């Protein structure tokens, strides 16, 4: 498993450091300042969108589920970092072999926080709106690929992040089901002040 993980990592990371403008694009797409912001902006658009009130309510539940899943996924990554043995980042484990074209993060490699958060955003929305969920999963996939390309994560870290995102969304779905009356009241309150 570890060998396969490292093999796939070196195959993807080996694509970097050949064409500088491609590296620049992927570095930008992989950072926390670009696609995560795009995803949040997309969620704001989803919040205000819908042909009628039923449509809009469904979308707003999607946004709530998406953001809550991201929060829970971050929490799960934090817990994993405290419980699991630290996995060294690829550039730490193989300092002479890895093309590191990004700043060196200092937290453990497994699981990927970026993958967990971005997939949680996409999966949370997918639960309520399949089409928009698939669209939002595109940036999540790009971020995840990019994190391997730039040399800061192994593919298994990404899969770990994805698993945590699915788990986080599952937890949020249960909570939403239990708290539905409270959330309905909250949405109604927001409607009264024209924010939903």
């Amino acid at each position, binding site marked *: 498993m570890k060998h396969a993980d490292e093999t796939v990592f070196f195959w993807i990371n080996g694509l970097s450091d050949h064409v500088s403008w491609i590296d620049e694009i992927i570095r*930008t797409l992989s*950072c926390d300042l670009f696609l995560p912001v795009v995803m949040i*902006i997309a969620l*704001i*658009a989803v919040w205000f969108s819908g042909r009628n009130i039923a449509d809009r309510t469904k979308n707003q539940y999607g946004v709530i589920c998406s953001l809550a899943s991201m929060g829970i996924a971050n929490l799960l990554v934090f817990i994993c970092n405290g419980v699991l043995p630290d996995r060294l980042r690829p550039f730490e484990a193989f300092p002479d072999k890895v093309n590191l074209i990004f*700043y060196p993060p200092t937290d453990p490699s497994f699981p990927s926080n970026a993958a967990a958060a971005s997939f949680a955003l996409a999966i949370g929305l997918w639960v309520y709106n399949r089409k928009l969920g698939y669209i939002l999963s595109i940036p999540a996939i790009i971020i995840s690929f990019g994190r391997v390309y730039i040399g800061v994560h192994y593919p298994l870290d990404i899969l770990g992040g994805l698993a945590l995102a699915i788990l986080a969304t599952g937890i949020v779905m249960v909570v939403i089901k239990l708290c539905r009356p409270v959330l309905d009241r909250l949405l109604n309150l*927001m*409607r009264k002040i*024209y924010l939903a």
Partner: protein
Amino acid sequence: MDGYVGSWSFVAEYCVYVFIAVIGLMQIIAAKWELRGIAFFHAKKWGYTFGSVAIAGVFIWFFGFTGLDLKEPTFDTPPQLLWLAVSVVLALLVTFGVSSFVNRNMKPTAEPDETQRDGIEVLKRKTYWQSIARFFDKGGTR
């Protein structure tokens, strides 16, 4: 805060980046869903144009012209989320404020079947200020 990315100037640039992007987005939303009460422009095509140019322009500015170096560490997640939230809220407040001023002569109309459940749908017919003022006039019951 140490270095460029931890500096207040970086925080300010990040906030401006998110703020302008959300302002632009809200104009596209206003045009798409015909929310005249929060639109800066009467013609939908100007809403789309302004929104697209604002979003594209601020992304190009932030990543191309602020001196951002992605080989240096940027925000940790908590401060990034905090400044993101602050910028989004500010952008919404400014959108509601500016659009209420620009459309201050808009004649507020009420649909016969308008109810409390309408929410942002009401912004098709009234500015945010007109809507919220009516809400408070009626003691929060509309």
